[in-house]
Every structure is written in structure tokens, then in C-alpha cells.
């Protein structure tokens, strides 16, 4: 079966085929037989590689609650034989919201990490943007997908800018010449600031 641009999807068969492995697995994890709150958590934990503690913080619940939620989901998947199967085209819409949430939260964690040394995790940001692009290709007419990709690109574009600002705030090596004007303005000038605040005597 070939995808035809003009064809009626209901007549010509499903043009929606998830080709990307990770996105397929995210759709698989978002099985409607799992509790809505568990779908997103399982996908973030198993496919996106977040730790249980990170998933808990991302979804605003305690780590103990998340541990229980994940273990209940695992138990149901095992006992009820919830299949790890790529959903058919007609099954995609009911999983769409959860998949969108996974991508958004993945980005969020990358953009502003809930823990760890580095507040920005570029790998997660890039992964989320990649998934959002694929999702957009898969469901080009879905407003949520378009909005999500736009949001991620807009904020993701600021990432380098943010990193530079953080580096500047840390008094790191980046000099004013390397930074956008806006950042350079924000860059603290320790000596000057201290003088302004009267902490150091001039000269």
C-alpha cells in the first residue's frame, strides 16, 4: 500500500504509519488499557530514560507515589499481557494526547532539569524536538502537534542563548564578544558591581 497525497485515508487505508522506532515505542507505551496517569510515566521512564525520581518530579508527585504507579503499570502489563505492539493507524488518535504529553515533558526536563548538576540537558531537548517533528509529520493537521513543535522550537532556540547566559552568570570563560548583546548586558561585572554596591573602595 502506498501513501497517496490525494487519497481518502478511510478508503485507501491508513496513511498514518509510525516509522520512527522511538516514537513507535512511545505510542506503544501509551496503551489505553493503562491508567492515563501511568501511560506518560511509563514512557518517560522506559523510553526516555528518566529515573523514577525524575519522572516523579516531572509529573509533580512524590517518588513513592511514582514508584507505586510504575510498579502497578508494570504488573498490569505483565499480568494482562498488554502487548508491546505498534498501534494501527486508527488507534493513534486515542493515544495522541499521552504521546504529546511525553514529548512536552521530555523537553521540559531537558530545558530546565529538575535535578542534577546541569540545569540544561541538551540530549533530552534534542530528542524531544526530534520526536515533535516526527509527530508533526505523522499528524500534520492536529493543532496540538503544530503548537507543540512551535513551542519546542521557540524555546529550544533559546537554549544556546540560555547556556551562554548561565555561563556568563557563573563568571565562566565566555567573553562579551562571544555573547549576544542582550546576554552581555546581563553579564555581571563583579568588580563594577561590587564598587557600585559600595563593597570595594575605588582604587
Amino acid at each position, binding site marked *: 500500500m502506498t501513501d497517496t497525497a490525494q487519497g481518502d485515508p478511510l478508503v485507501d487505508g491508513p496513511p498514518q504509519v509510525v516509522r520512527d522506532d522511538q516514537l513507535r515505542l512511545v505510542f506503544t507505551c501509551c496503551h489505553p*488499557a493503562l491508567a492515563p496517569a501511568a501511560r506518560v510515566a511509563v514512557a518517560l521512564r522506559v523510553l526516555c530514560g528518566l529515573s523514577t525520581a525524575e519522572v516523579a518530579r516531572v509529573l509533580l508527585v512524590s517518588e513513592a507515589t511514582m514508584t507505586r504507579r510504575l510498579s502497578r503499570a508494570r504488573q498490569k502489563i505483565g*499480568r*494482562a*499481557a*498488554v*502487548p508491546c*505492539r505498534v498501534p494501527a493507524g486508527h488507534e493513534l488518535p486515542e493515544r495522541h494526547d499521552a504521546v504529546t504529553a511525553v514529548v512536552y515533558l521530555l523537553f521540559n526536563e531537558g530545558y530546565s532539569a529538575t535535578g542534577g548538576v546541569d540545569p540544561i540537558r541538551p540530549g533530552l531537548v534534542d530528542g524531544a524536538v526530534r520526536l515533535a517533528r516526527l509527530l508533526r509529520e505523522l499528524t500534520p493537521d492536529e493543532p496540538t502537534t503544530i503548537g507543540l513543535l512551535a513551542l519546542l522550537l521557540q524555546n529550544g532556540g533559546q537554549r544556546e542563548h540560555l547556556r551562554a547566559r548561565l555561563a556568563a552568570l557563573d563568571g565562566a570563560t565566555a567573553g562579551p564578544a562571544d555573547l549576544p548583546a542582550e546576554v552581555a548586558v546581563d553579564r555581571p561585572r563583579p568588580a563594577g558591581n561590587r564598587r557600585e554596591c559600595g563593597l570595594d573602595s575605588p582604587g
Partner: protein
Amino acid sequence: MPAYVALTCTADVDWSAPEQTDELAGYREFGQAAAAIIRGGAALYPTATATTVRVRGGKGEVLASDGPHDETKEAITGFYLLECADLDEAVAAAAGLPAAWNGAVEVRPVIPFPPGEPTR
């Protein structure tokens, strides 16, 4: 292969009454369509015939009371034992039950005890 029980939850009906013939035809169709995966099952008399048994107290006093375990608008009116490859197959099969249209079907996985264990 995993096994599931599909509990038909519908209005309390008397399947043995003549006026249920049409409704039963739908279940007969299901029986034929799903013959390959049906391992057992039964239609139940209405809840008016139910007796609920409880044992309370240290002496093991048996309390048998009239009526179903739960007085609800929908009752368990029958069940099927299905053997399916996975939950998706069981759900697809359950969707073919008339109960899914005018009530609900609860699909529950069966614990695969070894032969001779609690189930027998």
C-alpha cells in the same frame, strides 16, 4: 497463551425468558465468530436467584443471604473464558459481545496456576 475472563455487565436479565431470544441471538453470533478462542463460559440466571455466602466470627458461622454481592444497576449476567494472544486480542473479542454495546464487558486476566493447583 494468556487466558481472560470476560464478564458481561448488563441490566439484570433473565436469559431463560422467551423475550430474550433476540438478545441471545447476538451472543450466539459471538459464539460462532469467536469459537476459536472461547474455552468456556455460561449465562447466569438473574440476581434474584443469587445467594451470597459469608462466613463471620471465630466459630465459622455461615451467613447465607438472599441477593447478589453487590446491589447495582448493572449486574454480572454471564461470563466467557477466552484464550487470547494478548490483551488487544481479548479486547477486540470482547467488543463483539452485545453486552459491550448495552452495558460493559470487564476483561480480567486469569492467573495461570499449574494444573492441580487452586483452580481445580
